[in-house]
């Protein structure tokens, strides 16, 4: 039984079958990659997992509970954090504040009218956030304006914001999209580091095979909205169905 169980999920947009009978099981403490050509339904699947889209049928169970019909903030409170394709951070706030906000969310829940305390008196939260920033080597930038960070640092910050919540599942939506090789490698190292330091389940949606093969323990190949195979990286490489999905009928 995996921590995330997707069963028989269907989603249509008008005449287009975006997802057809998707089954997926992500095991605890593994890095699970979902790959597939453009338009294979990867993003649609992800959006169904985080509450942005509602599947037409099927079930999505996380940690024994259904996530369907819940709002994004409720799903996050269940323990799923999400990293976006382009880093989504609080650009107008300082780096430290960016990391403190998820700490508050974790401690106080989705809403609390804590207007009588001051941020300065929240030493625990501040400590957690600073500790996290040290973990991702950004402690020296903590008073910077988050919007003025480099793209790589923004990605780092976003990961820190997700990790500080200690999620049971971290969803990464093409974390290296549009990055230069060096940045991509940095991100891979960062993710490996994160994985080495703590028990965490990750689900990566990715284009870049280099990233996938460096990180993933299990790989699901999605094509035209349906999973083709689920295998270990070694077995995926030469798999005929995968070659077919990526290269079409033409044989190389």
């Amino acid at each position, binding site marked *: 039984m995996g921590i995330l169980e997707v069963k028989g999920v269907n989603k249509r947009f008008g005449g287009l079958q975006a997802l057809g009978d998707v089954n997926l099981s992500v095991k605890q403490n593994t890095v699970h990659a979902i790959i597939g050509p453009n338009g294979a339904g990867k993003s649609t699947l992800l959006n169904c997992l985080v509450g942005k889209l509602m599947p037409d049928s099927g079930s999505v169970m996380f940690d024994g509970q259904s996530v369907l019909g819940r709002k994004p903030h409720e799903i*996050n409170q269940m323990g799923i954090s999400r990293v976006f394709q382009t880093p*989504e951070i609080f*650009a*107008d*706030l300082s780096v430290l504040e960016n990391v403190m*906000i*998820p700490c508050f969310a974790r401690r106080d829940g989705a809403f609390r009218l804590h207007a009588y305390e001051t941020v300065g008196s929240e030493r625990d939260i501040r400590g957690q956030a600073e500790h996290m920033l040290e973990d991702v080597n950004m402690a020296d930038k903590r008073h910077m304006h988050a919007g003025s960070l480099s793209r790589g640092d923004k990605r780092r910050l976003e990961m820190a*914001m997700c990790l500080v919540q200690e999620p049971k599942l971290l969803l990464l939506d093409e974390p290296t999209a549009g990055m230069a090789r060096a940045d991509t490698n940095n991100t891979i190292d960062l993710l490996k580091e994160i994985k080495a330091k703590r028990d965490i389940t990750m689900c990566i949606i990715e284009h870049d095979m280099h990233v996938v093969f460096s990180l993933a323990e299990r790989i699901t190949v999605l094509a035209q909205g349906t999973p083709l195979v689920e295998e270990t990286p070694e077995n995926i490489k030469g798999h005929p169905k995968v070659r077919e999905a990526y290269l079409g009928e033409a044989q190389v």
Partner: protein
Amino acid sequence: MLGLERRDLTILIAVAVITLFAPIILNPFPTGSALAQFNAGYPDLMQRFVIFGIFAIGFNILFGLTGYLSFGHAAFLGIGSYSAVWMFKLLSMNVIPAILLSIVMAGLFALVIGFVSLRRSGIYFSILTLAFAQMSYNLAYSVLTPVTNGETGLQITLSDPRILDGESSGLPVTSLFGAEMRDTTTLFVGPWSWDFSVGYYFCAALMLVAFYISVRIFRSPFGMMLRAVKSNQQRMNYTGLNSRPYTLAAFVISGMYAGLAGGLLAAMDPLAGADRMQWTASGEVVLMTILGGAGTLIGPVLGAGFIKYFENIFSKINDGILHQWFAFMPDGLENFVVAVIHPFIGKGWHLTLGIMFMLVVIFLPGGLVEGASRVGRVFRRRDRKADHVESDAARQRAAAE
């Protein structure tokens, strides 16, 4: 102290000192001198400074922190005024129950209007709030006449029950446990005269409380969440935070501030009219906040003071005064200058206001506070340049040795 950091405490103390001595500070020119018309230290105007200060401080909690631009906040001001006058009519001329009711009623209306309006954001939110305010205004003028007394406005009369107060011979006045709001002590020092009014100090005290609460909100985790709403609502939701109750809380708080301001307006002068709810009045508080600096602590207070001061001064100046000022010029030039300035003064004050509004939005989106800090930065940079020169010289010396 007071749970504030040193910088905020300094600001609070500075504001407190200024409001305390405002009757003196705002009357720098001797009575009867030519410049006395620039004095602003009379109770009526000072009361407006602090009351609209409260209004703008509250508006800033919503607009400055969350970025939600409400175009209907005057509705809460009006509701506050009506509630207060009804309290004066029914219960007592004491201002405390009146103001409490103002805050509560404005808060309730804000809860309902906010709950509906906050389901949309951006320009849709602005239009929804505008629609609600216009609805309140139109209703206050027409069907709700039994409650609002329509065009005439709601006033106190001799025949009102006022169950807590005894019979009174004349039309009673608002008071705080016996201290009449209109009581003023005038102090004469040499050619100067300073008015210390009970009403002003009552409003000023409440403004300080309001300001203190707003500082606490700005520095609280709640305030940080509100800034997060403005910055990136998507990230906020995916961080497990529900932005809706945060924005609603901000909306209600700022509505209560507006209600307090409306209640105080009525406490100083017990009448309430529908024009207080018109959307131009909503525009005015937006202007105050922007002019001072939205999202800054002190900005709204500055903006409110600035606008109310210039409104007062500009509307008082007339051609006669202008001719006096420019009397030193040759006649032709004098007439020309007066003719050029004429459209901007007196009844033309709104023109000046509109131009100021545009200039601020175009050139100084951060308002007066940002302007001041820009000026400050220029000076500091000069200092640093001087430092650079020195350190360069030191380095050259070191290299030479």
